[in-house]
C-alpha cells in the first residue's frame, strides 16, 4: 500500500457558499438590486404576502424568485399580479444555496430591477444556515403556528433582520400570546424589527413596505 500523508487543511465547509453569497451581494449592490430572502415554515403566508407586495410595488421594478421542492404554482400566482417571477424547483433540496441563486440571478441582472424577493423553501431549520447573498433576511411566522416558536427555532430568529408575524386577522379566533412571541424573539435578537401583518385585511403591509424602502436606501447609499 502506498504511504499516506497527513495534511492540515482547516477550511470551513460553508466557505464556498459564503464566497458566492458575498459575490452575489456585491453585484446586486452595484446593480441597485436590493435582495430580500424570505424564510418561514410551509403555509405561513409567504406567497400571499408577496402577492400584496407585488400589488403595491409593481411600479418599483420588482422580481420574485419562488423556490419550492415541486410545482410552479407560486410563480403563476405572482405573475398574475403583473410581476416578473421565476420558479425554482429544488426537487428535494430542503433549502437554497448561494450557487443556485447565482445561476438564477444571471437572468435578472442588467434589467433595472430594484428589488428581488426570494421566497425560500418552507422550512425553519436548513435555510437559516445558508447565506444566499441577500441584503435582508425576513422571517415570517404565522399566528396559527403557535406562540412557542422563537425558543424552538432560535437560529431563524438570530439570523433574521426582520420578523413578520403574519395572519394577525386570526388573532381573535386563537389563543395566541403575541407579546410573548415579541419578547422571546427580541430575547434571541435584540435588533430584530417586528411587524404585525395581515395579507387579507392589508394591516401592516404599508409599514413593512416603508421598512423595505428605507432599508434599500440605507444599503445603496
Amino acid at each position, binding site marked *: *500500500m*502506498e*504511504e*499516506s*500523508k*497527513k*495534511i*492540515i*487543511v*482547516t*477550511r*470551513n*465547509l*460553508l*466557505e*464556498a*457558499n459564503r464566497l458566492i453569497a458575498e459575490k452575489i451581494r456585491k453585484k446586486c449592490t452595484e446593480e441597485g438590486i436590493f435582495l430580500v430572502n424570505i424564510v418561514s415554515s410551509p403555509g405561513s403566508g409567504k406567497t400571499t404576502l408577496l402577492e400584496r407586495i407585488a400589488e403595491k410595488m409593481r411600479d418599483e421594478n420588482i422580481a420574485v424568485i419562488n423556490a419550492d421542492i415541486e410545482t410552479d404554482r407560486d410563480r403563476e400566482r405572482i405573475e398574475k399580479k403583473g410581476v416578473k417571477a421565476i420558479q425554482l424547483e429544488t426537487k428535494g*433540496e*430542503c*433549502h437554497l*444555496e448561494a450557487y443556485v441563486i447565482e445561476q438564477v440571478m444571471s437572468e435578472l441582472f442588467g434589467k433595472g430591477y430594484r428589488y428581488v424577493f426570494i421566497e425560500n423553501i418552507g*422550512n425553519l*431549520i*436548513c435555510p437559516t*444556515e*445558508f447565506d444566499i447573498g441577500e441584503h435582508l433576511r425576513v422571517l415570517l411566522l404565522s399566528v396559527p403556528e403557535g406562540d412557542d416558536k422563537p*425558543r424552538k427555532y*432560535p*437560529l431563524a430568529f438570530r439570523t433574521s433582520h426582520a420578523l413578520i408575524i403574519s395572519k394577525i386577522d386570526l388573532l381573535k379566533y386563537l389563543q395566541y400570546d403575541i407579546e410573548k412571541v415579541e419578547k422571546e424573539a427580541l*430575547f*434571541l*435578537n*435584540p435588533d430584530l424589527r417586528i411587524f404585525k401583518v395581515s395579507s387579507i385585511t392589508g394591516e401592516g403591509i404599508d409599514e413593512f413596505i416603508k421598512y423595505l424602502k428605507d432599508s434599500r436606501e440605507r444599503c445603496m447609499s
Partner: protein
Amino acid sequence: MHELSLIRELFSIMEEEVKKHGKEKVRRVKLKIGRFSGAIPEYMKEAFQFYSINTFAEGAELEIDIEEPVAICPFCNITFNPSDILLMCPNCGRSGKLEKGGELILESLEIA
C-alpha cells in the same frame, strides 16, 4: 437534512486538496463540528458514507471532533458554557453570542 449539502462541500474541498498535493485517495478525514453548528454527527457520517461510494474517498475513515459551546454575554462581558442554544447568560439572563461551538471545519486529511 442539510448534512448532505455539507458533505458535498466537504468533497469539493477534499478534491481540491488531493489534487493540490498530487495524490489520488483520501484515507482519513478529520472534522471539527460545533455542538451548536446545526449538523448532526451521525447524519454527517451516514451522508459521508453514501456520498463516498465510487469516489476517491471510498472507505475513508471519518473522525468527528465535537467542539463544546462557549458563549459571551455582550452586556456583562463574561464567557460561559451555555446549556442550550438559547445561550442564556447566567448573570443577567439575556441571550449571549456563540463564540465556539458553531464550527463546521475540515481540520486534516490523510491522503495517499
